């Protein structure tokens, strides 16, 4: 099955109402937080769900799901920087690499070598220090923020319960066809360009942790659909999706099952309850009408 990539459906009635509501809502204090955020407009994203799916005992492609976001989403323009993470380490709120006292960390380079636990600890610390609520994106939110940088997983082959190798070989071919690993060296923000939302380095050489848990969806004859979730393994997103144990910092081991592992692991956070400035609300309103407009 083939689906249009990055189809953005404007269930525009609702979206516009929400955006106008934000525009005329009560004025709020300007943010006390210097984090550079981009406000994404309400939208619907359609993508192939994360997780493992099987029917009658054999693997099948994940279903294509549509998720509607009725609220704007405040996203960090860049990934968490090396300097920002180092500050969290210095505050003893984050686990630091042993070389924490070596060369000063740069604020124009992404923090790499973060585990999910590290990224979550950083979000908690940033929330405490700014008074806002920061968190990792859900998998759907990541697809939303990535826009055209999200590469849909390739559908592999129809399930054949008599021959598990067939789907396995097809999945292997799909993995092998993915881009070769890119240089792991962290690059200054913007090196990998910006996407249509104005977010820097989405799907560059740093994969981003999400809050999505690995899940398995079993649909068997007579048994009905059942789901198991393992939140010890989280979904990472970038040039391709991966499933990585939450304590892993070096994805070269522990990454995608075959093919290309993520080059690096880092984070880009979502801020809830954004105190939108008037220009941001206007931008969100405009973008809700023109989905490809870059927001500043």
């Amino acid at each position, binding site marked *: 099955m*083939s689906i249009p990539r990055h189809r953005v459906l404007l269930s525009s009635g609702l979206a516009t109402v929400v955006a106008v509501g934000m525009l005329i809502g009560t004025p709020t204090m300007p943010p006390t937080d210097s984090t550079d955020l981009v406000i994404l407009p309400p939208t619907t994203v359609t993508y192939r769900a994360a997780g493992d799916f099987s029917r009658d005992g054999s693997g099948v492609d994940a279903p294509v799901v549509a998720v509607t976001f009725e609220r704007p989403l405040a996203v960090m323009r860049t990934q968490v920087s090396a300097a920002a993470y180092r500050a969290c380490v210095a505050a003893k709120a984050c686990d630091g690499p042993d070389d924490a006292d070596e060369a000063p960390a740069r604020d124009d380079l992404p923090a790499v070598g973060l585990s999910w*636990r590290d990224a979550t600890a950083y979000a908690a610390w940033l929330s405490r220090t700014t008074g806002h609520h920061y968190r990792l994106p859900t998998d759907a939110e990541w697809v939303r923020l990535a826009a055209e940088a999200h590469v849909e997983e*390739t*559908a*592999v*082959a129809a399930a054949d319960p008599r*021959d*598990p*190798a*067939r789907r*396995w*070989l*097809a999945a292997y*071919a*799909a993995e*092998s*066809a993915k881009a070769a690993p890119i240089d792991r060296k962290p690059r200054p923000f913007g090196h990998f360009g910006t996407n249509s939302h104005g977010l820097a380095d989405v799907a560059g050489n740093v994969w981003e942790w999400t809050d999505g848990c*690995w899940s*398995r969806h079993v649909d068997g004859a007579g048994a009905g659909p059942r789901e*198991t*979730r*393992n939140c*010890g*393994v989280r979904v990472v997103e970038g040039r391709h999706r991966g499933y990585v*144990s*939450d*304590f*892993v*910092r*070096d994805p070269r*081991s*522990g*990454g*995608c*099952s*075959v093919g290309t*592992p993520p080059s690096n692991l880092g984070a880009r956070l979502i801020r809830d309850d954004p105190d939108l400035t008037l220009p941001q609300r206007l931008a969100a309103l405009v973008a809700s009408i023109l989905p490809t407009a870059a927001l500043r």
Partner: protein
Amino acid sequence: MLSRRDALFGSTLVALAAAAATAAPALAAATGDDVAALRHVKVDLVAPPFVHAHEQATAEAPKVVEFTMTIVEKEIVIDSDGTKMHAMTYDGWIPGPMMIVHEGDYLQLTLINPDTNTMPHNIDFHAATGALGGGELTLVAPGEQATLRFKATRPGVFVYHCAPPGMIPWHVTSGMNGVVMVMPRGGLTDRAGKKLHYDRVWYIGESDFYVPKDAKGAYKTYPSLGDAYEDVTKTMRGLIPSHVVFEGKVGALTGDHALTAKVGETVLIVHAQANRDTRPHIIGGHGDYVWETGKFDNPPQTGLETWFIRGGSAGAALYTFRQPGIYAYVNHNLIEATELGATAHFKVEGTWNDDLMKLVSAAGPIATH
């Protein structure tokens, strides 16, 4: 959307399937339905170094032998100093319990990963054919179970181990390995085809552990399995084990836990090392018949001094005790045996044989002339 490459794969497979269909009479493989009709036997597993009751030779028709193993993640103590390690185990044991079937039987394992665990696990049977030894089909997250069946097509002792994507050596050297023994239907034989029997099996699972040390050289402990991962991986990459042990712990098979036998009894010592080479030796004894590579279709070597077990394999040695006393069974890299832990003891009772050995003159002052 299929890529050209996928399409190529697809058409190749179709072609292969067509070829297989025309060749079907020659393949004569049992279908799943045929196997379901065979006799099914449930067998309870036994903690190593012992093995479940089994026939050596069998007159029965091939059957399906069903086992169940529960994966247990737990912190264990691996030496007398109290050094701790976060272990991952099959059924709570290092090595995992031995499963015994006959050639032509089907081994069916239900692998349970309780939701109290934190990691996905699976099992790769070196005795099985296809799907990475079953590893590709058996990955179970906490809260899941899977049941795999494979046909035991070749006789011998074979390693099984966990092989989760990206983390294989960590799981294997944290305890997730064991042995399947596939007996020839007629039992063991020597080079000339004469039947060989044993009174019992001793199952030795050798492990190399990699416990990280702090700056002062003290072994580190970690609050959880995941917390230990990074340091353990670094230590593993050095390829120098902190411990080399039998049955998961220094001294697991010595002192009160030494294995016991009587003069005249014959033991089959199965020795497995899922990760690293080793060289078993019975100090004061021999290997009467040794399947060094562990595969019973090959004639056993006889009268060996020390034999070699390739990492990732199991071997078997048949020995009849002729002399009472204490035997040390070691990995004859003696540094690993004495400094790192790879020693077991056998306590053997019976009557001393003066013909085999006699102290002609006890130790005393050097004679003068």
